[in-house]
């Protein structure tokens, strides 16, 4: 470094410094690059630079020319909650083709989706702790996530990218011990949430690091069209499972946890975090109800069309993924899909980052990025 000579020591010059956070940085959750302008350690400007993981999902999905073939690609949009991505797409195509899906399939989809939601939230919570320097809760979360992945692997044959839902039904029959496995998981998981609360949620250092940090007022959240825990953390009770039920979500009783500012201001990082923790409990409730009500018999491939004949039309379907509102907009022609557009929550939620991280410290910036819980596959598609 060249020696900095200051000709007039009396005049103190205040200069800002631009630092590059990412794409190779431990807490940007993938290949996100942030151009951060700092004044000392205070962040004055943040500019997210995305696109390192762009895989042309939309164009590729259109060029495949077959609705069934797109399903494995939807998995890869947000690889942490692959089943939710599939579910949104499959429901959209079913709506387009006006297909009726058997009861058993619907219940199975809901149970799997909620299991996946827990798995995804566990990852989000764990990595959030990791960003703040708590390594151990991260691995405890992964032990629990592993139990879910085992169930899903037994069902679908894959651990991460399931490709289990197909238009009109499921790819495979439900294994016989699925119900008992899930019950076992549900009962074993409840005490683990308490343990997580002891270790991380109520930890005073954790609260110091997250309360009153990255406050997102409800109005701003709505203006940026935030969704999911990001919006609910700001105190807005908006959950598509409740407010615009898709599939069979209207049959279950569950609460929509919202941020209440228990540890600081409404809409801070802690609120976003606690919404995720409480949502896991709600998901457990849904799973229990669904397991009770699920019909024991039935062909899961009953309604699967042998060949999908495309129809002319337009359809938009939105579903609630662990990260927020996922929308699929499909314009269909006789020959096949003309346009498939995915509105991913990660992308929209990330756009709020510059607005809420002004004036934070570099360490807070890491906490804020962690609390948004983005998946870069979802941001770039």
């Amino acid at each position, binding site marked *: 470094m060249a020696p900095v000579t200051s000709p007039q020591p009396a005049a103190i010059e205040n200069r800002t410094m631009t630092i590059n956070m990412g794409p190779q940085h431990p807490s940007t959750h993938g290949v996100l690059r942030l151009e951060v302008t700092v004044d000392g350690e205070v962040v004055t400007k943040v500019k997210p630079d995305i696109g390192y993981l762009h895989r042309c999902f939309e164009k590729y999905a259109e060029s*495949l020319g077959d609705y*069934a*073939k*797109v*399903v*494995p*690609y939807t*998995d890869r949009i947000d690889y942490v909650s692959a089943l939710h991505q599939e579910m949104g797409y499959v429901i959209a195509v079913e709506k387009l083709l006006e297909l009726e899906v058997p009861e058993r399939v619907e219940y199975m989809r809901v149970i799997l989706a909620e299991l996946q939601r827990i798995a995804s939230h566990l990852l989000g919570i764990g990595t959030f702790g990791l960003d703040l320097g708590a390594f*151990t809760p991260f691995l*405890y979360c992964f*032990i629990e996530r*592993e139990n879910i992945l085992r169930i899903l*692997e*037994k069902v*679908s*044959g*894959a651990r991460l*990218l399931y*490709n289990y839902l197909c238009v009109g039904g499921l*790819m*495979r029959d439900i*294994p016989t011990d699925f119900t008992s496995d899930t019950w076992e998981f549900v009962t074993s998981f409840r005490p683990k949430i308490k*343990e997580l609360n*002891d*270790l*991380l949620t*109520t*930890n*005073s*250092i954790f609260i110091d690091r997250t309360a009153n940090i990255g406050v997102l007022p409800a109005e701003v959240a709505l203006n940026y069209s935030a969704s999911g825990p990001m919006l609910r953390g700001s105190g807005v009770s908006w959950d598509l499972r409740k407010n615009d039920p898709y599939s069979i979500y209207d049959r279950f009783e569950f609460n929509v946890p919202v941020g209440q500012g228990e540890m600081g201001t409404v809409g801070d990082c802690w609120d976003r975090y606690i919404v995720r923790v409480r949502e896991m409990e709600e998901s457990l409730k849904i799973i229990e109800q669904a397991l009770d009500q699920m019909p024991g018999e039935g062909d899961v491939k009953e309604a699967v069309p042998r060949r999908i004949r495309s129809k002319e039309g337009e359809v938009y379907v939105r579903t609630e993924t662990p990260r927020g509102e996922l929308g699929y907009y499909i314009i269909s022609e006789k020959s096949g899909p003309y346009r498939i557009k995915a509105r991913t929550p990660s992308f929209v939620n990330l756009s709020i980052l510059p607005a809420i991280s002004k004036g934070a410290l570099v360490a807070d910036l890491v906490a804020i990025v962690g609390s948004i819980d983005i998946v870069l596959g979802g941001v770039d598609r």
Partner: protein
Amino acid sequence: MVQTLKKSWTTFKTIFTGMGVTMRHLLQPSVTLRYPEERDELPSGARSKLFVHIDDCIGCKLCERACPVNCIAIETVQATKDVDLGKTSTGNPKRFWITTFNIDMSKCMYCDMCVPPCPTECISMVPEYEYSEYDRNNLLFQFSELSADKVTEVKEKAEKEQEEKQRKKKEAARKKKAQKADQTSKAKQKNSEG
């Protein structure tokens, strides 16, 4: 002052609760599997490698068409009339020589889309995951069991038969045409006579 003391107290309390949790885990047995010595049993339907019972393949190419990444390449040659390729284990008659059945596992994305369409259930995912290779070319699995000589022989035969067929067809067509021409000329004659 009181608030600071209160806060310090909760800080200590929560730190000790957390440390209690980690101490409990320290004394618990670990969950690690020591991989090469201990292995987790994969569930029977695990998707880790594609396998083809080539004896059961009827060469319908449905799997090739279903594959979203085009990692399956199949070439078939129609069997000549003098050979009987037999039947598959599911009872479907085989009508094609499978001269090529290549699966490029380096392209495969393990989506399982090729398995359900197969009418004879000859293509399937097997729970075998230890097949890493240093050379990418080694991941091109060739399932066709025909030797190169056999392939050329079969191809020639098929071509010949095809030619034969073509010729016969042409001949038949010509005959037909000639007959027709004959008839029309006769009819014309009749007309002119009348």
